[in-house]
């Protein structure tokens, strides 16, 4: 049976991995960007939520799959060597009266089966998190909360899925879905028709458009923007826990976290944008000012603004009423929606994937799936030279001198790692090697200087390894090339224009 998954974000990639366990499936993972995980899944808070934020009566799927997803990530992260940590989360009640809100969420935690959640008060709070605002009244403490490297999660899932037989098609945009007699026959793409009996829509912000192509109308997805500040890795004081505040009717406030890479990060905002703004990942002064103002209330002290190394924004794919649309249909048979996966989508991804396969494919559509006798659950992470013990480093350089050449000084990333990232991209079938792809795999250009020193050195390596001219190396594909030609291109062009005019 042929299956097409539309979209290689965390959801599509998770589904691909789960499907790769089964016999007799030919799974095609389609992604319109040159690389995987470049949509919603790359820019978010990257928290593995404990599961106390969703009311099970209002959002049954979100409530159930979040808690399950949280649990599954322990196993998945281990198998796939994805950077995670489990620091626990504090929903801080700044004023006495906010404790009532905290208690409300404690109730939800109990309903949803979140282990270990309880209310703590000022004294214990400042012990658990020394950098929290010392005037805060207390907090809801949820020890099972975790954090993950979201882009590496997608990359790891896809690497593992491809290893187990899934085929990745990048730069392949689904433009239509062929349906005959109420049954799915395949998808039309910019690279031609791809046959499939099952089409799973995991297209993130564009899932409404894909769904329309299958004739399943009736919902639209609008972007809700979240903006962030990231501080330099040496900037502190950092927080140990995930810190945010009890939501108010006006705002959910923001998070203060230390990312798995070790940077203090604050955000996000929640700004609803019109439906057509699905690419507007810009930052704004108003948004960033909001983040700063609210983060300040949560902690003792923020580092100075001069220690900010990056600001960015992400877009949440908001479905109507915030309800995830995870469904299969009788007509068209074979079309499966996994749409509007807003937060806690990253947390829930493993559970959503299992749900889609068990409840929808196996259950609802009655497709009999049997597990392969041999399936490899493991994936090795990229070597991070800077963190290796001395003997290991020596050994790496001996076998490949490129590991002795530090290209990105801030994050101490070597040429060996850059080349390994490029090779891994090629191995999963990526056609255009982008600088963003290298960046998210190696964490080069992620440090204090944000690539002002090393971007050109990395571009040179990409040009060499892929045999294209340096100026054609792109940040994220077509239209984002590093340069416009050789250094005389403008003079030559204007000379030619003059000649032609004569």
């Amino acid at each position: 049976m042929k299956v097409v998954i539309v979209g290689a974000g965390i959801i599509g990639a998770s589904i691909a991995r789960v499907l790769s366990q089964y016999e007799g499936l030919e799974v095609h993972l389609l992604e319109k960007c040159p690389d995987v995980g470049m949509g919603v899944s790359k820019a978010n808070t990257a928290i593995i939520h404990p599961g106390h934020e969703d009311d099970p009566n209002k959002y049954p799927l979100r409530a159930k799959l979040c808690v399950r997803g949280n649990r599954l990530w322990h196993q998945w992260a281990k198998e796939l060597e994805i950077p995670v940590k489990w620091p626990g989360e504090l929903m801080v009640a700044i004023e006495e009266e906010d404790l009532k809100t905290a208690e409300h969420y404690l109730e939800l935690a109990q309903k949803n089966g979140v282990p270990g959640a309880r209310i703590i008060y000022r004294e214990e709070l400042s012990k658990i998190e020394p950098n929290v605002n010392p005037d805060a009244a207390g907090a809801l403490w949820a020890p099972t909360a975790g954090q993950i490297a979201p882009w590496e999660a997608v990359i790891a899932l896809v690497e593992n899925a491809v290893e187990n037989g899934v085929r990745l098609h990048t730069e392949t945009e689904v433009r239509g879905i062929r349906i005959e007699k109420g049954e799915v026959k395949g998808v039309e793409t910019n690279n031609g028709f791809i046959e499939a009996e099952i089409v799973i829509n995991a297209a993130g912000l564009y899932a409404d458009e894909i769904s329309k192509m299958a004739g399943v109308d009736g919902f639209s997805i609008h972007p809700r923007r979240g903006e962030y500040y990231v501080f330099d890795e040496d900037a502190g004081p950092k927080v140990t826990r995930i810190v945010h505040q009890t939501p108010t009717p006006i705002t959910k406030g923001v998070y203060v976290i230390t990312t798995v890479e070790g940077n203090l990060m604050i955000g996000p905002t929640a700004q609803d944008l019109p439906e057509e703004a699905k690419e507007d990942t810009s930052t704004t002064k108003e948004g960033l000012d909001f983040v700063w103002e609210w983060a300040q209330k949560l902690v003792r002290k923020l580092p100075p603004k001069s220690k900010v190394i990056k600001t960015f924004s992400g877009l949440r794919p908001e479905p109507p009423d915030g309800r995830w649309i995870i469904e299969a249909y009788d007509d068209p048979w074979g079309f499966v929606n996994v749409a509007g996966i807003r937060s806690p989508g990253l947390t829930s991804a493993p559970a959503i994937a299992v749900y889609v396969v068990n409840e929808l494919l196996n259950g609802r559509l009655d497709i009999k799936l049997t597990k392969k006798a041999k399936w490899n659950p493991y994936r090795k992470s990229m070597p991070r030279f800077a963190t290796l013990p001395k003997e290991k480093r020596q050994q790496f350089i001996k076998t490949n001198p490129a590991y002795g050449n530090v290209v990105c000084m801030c994050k101490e990333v070597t040429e060996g790692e850059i080349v390994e990232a490029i090779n891994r991209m090629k191995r999963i079938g990526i056609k255009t090697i982008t600088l963003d792809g290298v960046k998210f795999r190696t964490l080069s250009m992620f440090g204090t200087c944000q690539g002002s020193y090393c971007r050109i050195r990395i571009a040179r390596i990409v040009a060499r390894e892929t045999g294209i001219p340096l100026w054609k190396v792109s940040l994220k594909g077509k239209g984002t090339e590093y340069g416009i030609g050789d250094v005389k291109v403008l003079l030559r062009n204007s000379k030619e224009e003059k000649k032609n005019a004569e």
Partner: protein
Amino acid sequence: MQNDYDVIVIGGGPAGLAAAIKAKEYGLKVLLLENRDVLGGIPLQCVHPGFGLHYFKEDLTGTEFIYRFIEKFKELGIEYYTGSHVMKIIPVSDIEKRLEVITPQGLLELTTTTIIYATGARERHIFEIGITGHRVAGIYTAGEAQTMMDIDGIMPGREIVIVGSGDVGLIMARRFALEGANVKAVIEIMPYPGGLTRNIVQCLQDFNIPLYLSHAVTRIEGKERVERVIVSKVDENLTPIPGTEREIECDTVVIAAGLVPYLKVLEKIGVMIDPATKGPVVNEYLETNIPGIFVAGNALVINDLVDYVVEQGEWAAESAYLYVKNQGIPSKKWRKIAKGRNIRLVVPHYVSGDRDVMIYARVQKPEENVKIRFPEIEKEVKLPVVRPAEMVRIKLRREEIKKAKDKITMEVVPND
């Protein structure tokens, strides 16, 4: 036990090369470590003139200037590694520092009596100067754009807006214009230009490139590549004034918003940093608070002339020589150089009165017809003008320094 080296110089730009050459001439056992594949540092990519007027009494391009140092360095047979990176410095004792170095030849562990840290500076990027908007292609720091054009021979873009009117921004404006690009504007947040007057004339006016003073680029917009920037007037607090926004269409933004000493490895071992220079606090030997670790060039303070950088390199080499000879710098009665009126930064920070010392300083704002005054030692130097763009460089004589008790204030006062 004997150390592997008397001095290890980290960084192979003008400061490092000058230091290594001088140290070798003093008879020290020297090793130089450079991260790039070639020696030379930033001047390699500077094809414009203005280098060496003081040092060689000649007007050279950066490339010509640095070539003379590289040749001399190689003539002297000084040991060096390119493609190397210092991961760690361990100050074992006053007379032993251990370095962990990565090179394509393998991991090295080296010991040395002294270190001259000459790693230069890094460039400030869009996030540090608070530009919001889209993170698209077509945004470069000035140094990156310069490397693209003059090392790699590729053109970054067609329609250029330059952020910052320091010398780097001005030189890049001209460099783009010379290759046929349309330089739409140079945007400067301060009410006065950041670069030398001769560069305003030769790089902007000669090419009809407009300079907007008291303006800031607040936002970059575009889908895949830059399509426009939003520019606002700023008030006296440098805050954008609402209602003054205007758009400039362009496909390239070049950030030339200043440099910051690049000190990653030093910061990790607790070297004291001066918030004004963003470089280390040093005494008259250019020695940091860790004995035997000296700093020179843009890693010490952002200089506007390569000649000063070389001067500091040679100065640090002499210090290393004295340190090796005497097994340390004897403790002294230090006098602090204090910042008075209209002085933004000054190095070195401490002087003793045992030797003459060159003082480098920058003012906060331009002022005409002034005196630089050191009240405690009754010294005055008249200057027709001082500008933030131009370092003030004054020698204090040892007998002058001795007059002060514990501090020497440096201030700018009107000359009446």
